């Protein structure tokens, strides 16, 4: 992060990202967000505030939603990470991605990757959520464009479409 960490030198970090094993050399205190964006080229994960408030940098770490701007790289060692790039199956969009597209859940798009991952975690835990469940699950992800309504619609539509 600064001169001192540079002097400390880099170390090896092994982890699984979107199902693929990866080994990268990182500064120990480097943010996971920067490792994803700069070392692994996964720029779908966005930075909005750099202090864990906006949720734009949300990723799933072992299935749990984290703000990657607050996670030191070494803490991700050995974990299984899912980023927005891992959500679609090839060219086939996931039910959530399709619903975000159809319901107007993405406007400027900068919060969208984080929103979709937060929604993913919700639907994993609760395939048939209530409106209040959706509000609660997305309360750590800020959106300035939509007023959230069409994001709620999208999550509900995806939940209703998914088989169970």
């Amino acid at each position, binding site marked *: *992060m*600064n*001169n001192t*960490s*540079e002097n400390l030198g880099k170390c090896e970090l092994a982890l699984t990202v979107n199902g693929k094993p990866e080994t990268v050399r990182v500064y120990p205190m480097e943010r996971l967000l920067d490792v994803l*964006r700069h070392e692994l080229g*996964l*720029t*779908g*994960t*966005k*930075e*909005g*505030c*750099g*202090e864990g*408030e*906006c949720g*734009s940098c949300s990723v799933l770490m072992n299935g749990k939603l984290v703000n990657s701007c607050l996670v030191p790289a070494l803490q991700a060692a050995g974990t299984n990470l899912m*980023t*927005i*790039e891992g*959500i*679609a199956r090839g060219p086939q*969009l996931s039910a959530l*991605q399709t619903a*975000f*597209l*159809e*319901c*107007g*859940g*993405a*406007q*400027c*798009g*900068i*919060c*969208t*990757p984080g929103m*979709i991952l937060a929604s993913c975690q919700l639907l994993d835990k609760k395939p048939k959520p209530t409106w209040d469940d*959706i*509000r*609660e699950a*997305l*309360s*750590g*992800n*800020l*959106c*300035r*464009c*939509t*007023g*959230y*309504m*069409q*994001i*709620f619609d999208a999550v509900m539509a995806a939940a209703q479409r998914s088989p169970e």
Partner: protein
Amino acid sequence: MKEAHIIGKSVQRKEGRDKVTGAARYIDDMSFPGMLYGATVRSQIPRGVIQKISFGSQIDWSEFVTVTAKEIPGKNCIALIGDDQSCLADGLVNHPEEPILLLAHADRHVLRKAIEAVLIEYEPLPAVFTIEESELRSQIIWGTDNTFKTFLIAKGDVDSVWTKADYIVEGEYTTGAQEQLYIENNGVIAAFDAEQGITVWGSLQCPYYVHKALMALCNLPAERVRVVQVETGGAFGGKEDYPSMIAGHAALLAMKSGRPVKIIYDRLEDMTATTKRHPSRTRHRTALSKDGKILGGEIDFTIDGGAYATLSSVVLSRGVIHAGGPYYWPSIRVRGKAVATNAPPHGAFRGFGAPQSLFAMERHMDRIAQVVGLSPVEIRRRNFLKPGQTTTTEQTVREEIDLGKLLDRALELSDYAAKNARFARENEAGPVKRGMGIAAFLHGAGFTGSGERYLASVVGVEGCADGRVRVLASSTEFGQGTNTVLCQIAAEALNLPYDHIHIAQPDTNQVPNSGPTVASRTAMVVGSLVRSAAIGIRQTLTAGGMLNDSYSPAEFQVACRRHIAEHGELRSYARYETPEGVFWDDQKYRGEAYATFAWAIYVAQVAVDLSTYSARVQDFVALQEVGRVLHPVLAKGQIAGGVAQGIGFALYENVVWQNGRMQNGQMTNYIMPTSVDLPEIRVFFEEMGDVQGAYGAKGIGELPMDGPAPAIVNAIEDALGTRFDSVPLLPEDIFEAVSTDGRR
């Protein structure tokens, strides 16, 4: 007109797939070989003379590229309306966070330490921080009188109404600054080449504003300045003028170093250094007859422009024109004034002056209702503008708008009467008090007055050999749906499938100047030009005998290919022309202020918990007439998003100032609404009559910002019986007012 095949349908957002897969490339996702990272050394005081700049010895400065004001190749200004704002302070600073010096380095991690190692010594000068201090003029900080601009709107003989009035109602209303808070911070990359000149890629709204600013700053001709908008993560006006500043900084570093330079602000820098909504103060004095009819009135509208003129004159203009609301004033005098303070310049934010003056108007209507003894519903109904009447600028309302009918529908949708009665009963007991509030308002679409004539926007449409069509415009997408709606319009005009239309990336080397993406003008004004240019393509092909009046996409493709083989290319351009009979007097501020207005009635239901003093919006009905709805999902999204920002403006978003600097420039302490803070925002459209514009669409983007704050504060007064005349209205303000009321 024949049945529309694409207009009115919620087709897929053009760039939507890239946004939901994470493939969309925003400025911080781009990088160039050999790229440096730029940073800005800023003023730490509000006003003073720079005495000395020294560079701390703990840093090896030979690794850095630095640029000072003295090294600017062109004029040291951000060219916009006036040229009073410097790109880098030269000798004098006029606000905290004013840029003084630029640094660049290959490793972005070392920049913060370097900024801290630059020592700037100042001789401080006295500064002013409020409208009132500025008006006192004990310190002249701008021009000769601290005044950027004044306007006067005068209609009828207002001086004669006071003696005839049965009631005279006065009030003063204020609104605070508000941060746009797009989730993507400002950012650009600049590259310089001795042959090609300067190229800037960035997160921005108005490529040709940046283009103009770079020509002056870099002393380069138009053809050696290129500006490219990349995917932009929200803007709301906050990327209207400021990108010219950050682009200028990156350009100066790129020219000096010969390497590409990226500047990305972090959240703190973006919030403390860039523009916000203008704080405002409005004073009303209104004469009324005994039956509650407005006889005339005076409105004084003043905004705090910050340290430089930037866009304040235009924000003021929209504010004064909207100050009278959707009501008929037989006589009125509106005075507007934009004053200087030693804060970073305030700028564009959705609504652009109208949310401020309409907050005052709609609070004042509730005040009038109380004095006259009518309900908030009835006082509005008796004064609504009707077709054939004139606005405050003496623009005749030609649309078949029926505001009474719109109001009736909003009351029905919100279950207003029943809830009003029930809350009155239930508020007797318990700590939670509920209330209902209304706001009626209008919003003019497009540039004000002669603005569109001066802009003379141009749009191109190109038929390609593969039968696909490309829209060429500098109008930008930043979430609101520009790409989608302009393609829909071209598809409709050419009777082609939506998938056959795409839109060029806004790149000043590739697209004509279709004007800035502001002022709710894109769908209406630019959309009309897309339609004309698209019709031009069809006419060219039919006139050349290559296409019949009705055709299939395959026949269209054959015709395009033939035309291109014979003539090289197939392009059609359309330029804005003022419609017949439109009159506007810039001197007297009289005439057709806008080609058309959108109209709306919003109803808020609010609960105030007197154990915590927090107010919460429980239901929100947003009913509007915006002409033809081109894309229902996008239109609903625009309204709900604007209402959410309006709820933030009313109840949550408080910029804490200290000596002209924002003290809470983080998302941790500047609070915008989250998913659990908002009620269900219920959006409804009423389509009435025919309007000018592409397929009858009016501007929509800014309208929803105007109504929520007054509707909510009216509802809080309804719940508590206590007067509130300022936003943001925080729990501590409610506590203070209720306690004071209790002591009276």
